[in-house]
């Protein structure tokens, strides 16, 4: 059986940052990544990031992926990357089963960092399986990575940052965004993104959602309606909108399956995306030597995932190496970066979620 001291599951912003941090401290690591390249969702993100310089502010997502990969290349001797490989099972003795191009094998590790990220939430409406109904991730992959338009006339369901940013990108690509629908009474994302859309003439309707898609072979129109305070459709407010595509962007669910199967404690904290693993301040789960970071331990922006990844890289390396030079200053720097990213009104949800996590007691 293949052995490695430290295994990182997922080579997205959190996992890759974790590997770089651990390697910079002298720890050798193995990253197992499902797709054929590192960088995770960053590779399809063409928008510029916020934050400060350390979190690559005003650099576009796919460029950040390139910068992280360049940084990884400095530590190539210490970071082994296994691509096109999916971890299919995680066991209490820290053995992972992996499938890579049809080959099934195992890796045993002393410390494991799970950084599997999150997947898109789905919503229930009539004919929600018609072709032409996409998740925002699929739209970004098609449009930003492969240059394929998802449709010509589209309605965006969800006004979080992803919904707003992808709507803007659709307009840039020449797609007519008819409107953005938000079930909640307030726009979910940053005002700066919403304003850009409004200046282009795209209406953002709050307390409104999709009830139904019509069409035989693909979407031809949709029915939308106003929602009451309990998010139920108000009869009589239905209207039909002609579109050939619908983009659903209603949030992300942490991908906790591997941790769930190894018996790690999973908590329901809606502010963090739903079911999330309980982690300590050191990002360790309730299973000794298994850590979690990034969107998996609470859905946030990629900027936070990168800092959390580095922080977890420090904790995991500390476990294996014992003492670390400049431990305290690295730790303080990363903690203050995270606090900065989570300060202000838009960090409120995350702060409340993390407080609930803390109140749940020891792992």
């Amino acid at each position: 059986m293949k052995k490695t001291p430290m295994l990182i599951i997922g080579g997205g912003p959190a996992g890759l940052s974790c590997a770089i941090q651990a390697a910079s401290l002298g720890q050798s690591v193995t990253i197992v990544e499902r797709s054929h390249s590192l960088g995770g969702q960053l590779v399809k993100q063409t928008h510029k990031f916020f934050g400060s310089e350390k979190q690559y502010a005003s650099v576009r997502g796919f460029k950040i992926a390139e910068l992280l990969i360049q940084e990884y290349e400095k530590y190539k001797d210490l970071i082994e990357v296994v691509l096109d490989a999916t971890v299919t099972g995680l066991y209490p003795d820290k053995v992972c089963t992996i499938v890579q191009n049809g080959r099934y094998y195992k890796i045993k590790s002393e410390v494991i960092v799970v950084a599997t990220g999150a997947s898109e939430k789905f919503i229930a409406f009539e004919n929600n399986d018609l072709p032409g109904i996409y998740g925002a991730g699929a739209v970004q992959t098609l449009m930003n990575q492969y240059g394929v338009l998802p449709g010509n006339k589209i309605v965006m369901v969800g006004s979080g940052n992803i919904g707003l940013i992808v709507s803007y990108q659709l307009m840039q690509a020449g797609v007519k965004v008819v409107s953005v629908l938000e079930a909640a009474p307030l726009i979910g994302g940053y005002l700066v993104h919403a304003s850009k859309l409004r200046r282009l003439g795209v209406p953002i309707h709050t307390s409104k959602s999709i009830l139904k898609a019509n069409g035989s072979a693909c979407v031809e129109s949709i029915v939308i309606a106003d929602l009451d305070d309990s998010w139920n459709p108000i009869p009589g407010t239905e209207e039909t909108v002609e579109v050939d595509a619908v983009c659903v962007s209603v949030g992300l669910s942490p991908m906790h399956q591997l941790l769930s199967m190894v018996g790690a404690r999973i908590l329901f904290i809606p502010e963090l995306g739903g079911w999330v693993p309980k982690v300590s301040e050191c990002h360790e789960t309730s299973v000794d030597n298994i850590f979690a970071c990034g969107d998996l331990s609470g859905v946030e922006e990629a900027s936070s995932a990168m800092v959390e990844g580095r922080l977890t890289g420090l904790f995991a390396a500390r476990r294996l190496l014992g003492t670390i030079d400049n431990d305290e200053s690295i730790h303080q720097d990363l903690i203050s970066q995270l606090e900065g990213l989570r300060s202000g009104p838009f960090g409120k949800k995350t702060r409340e979620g993390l407080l609930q996590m803390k109140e749940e007691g020891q792992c």
Partner: protein
Amino acid sequence: MRDDKIIICRCEDVTLADVKRCLEEGYTNFEDLKRQLRVGMGPCQGQTCSALIQREIAKFTHKAMKDVPIQKTRPLIIGVELRAIKDGAIDES
């Protein structure tokens, strides 16, 4: 709204009508629904349907979302060819 046109688990093609029928029959937790309908047993292993089903159970049983557990996940989380597992068994040491 036609519940039989609303897909809840797209891997196994299970509709909201199927879920509601099972709830009425007394299968009011995820593990029971899984055994009746195969929800959460397809390629995505419940990553897509679990939150929707959790909400339906919460509504039906008048429980808070946090009090409605979702499915237990077991290996393997994606489809693996039996041949790959057989060949992989050589590498046990």
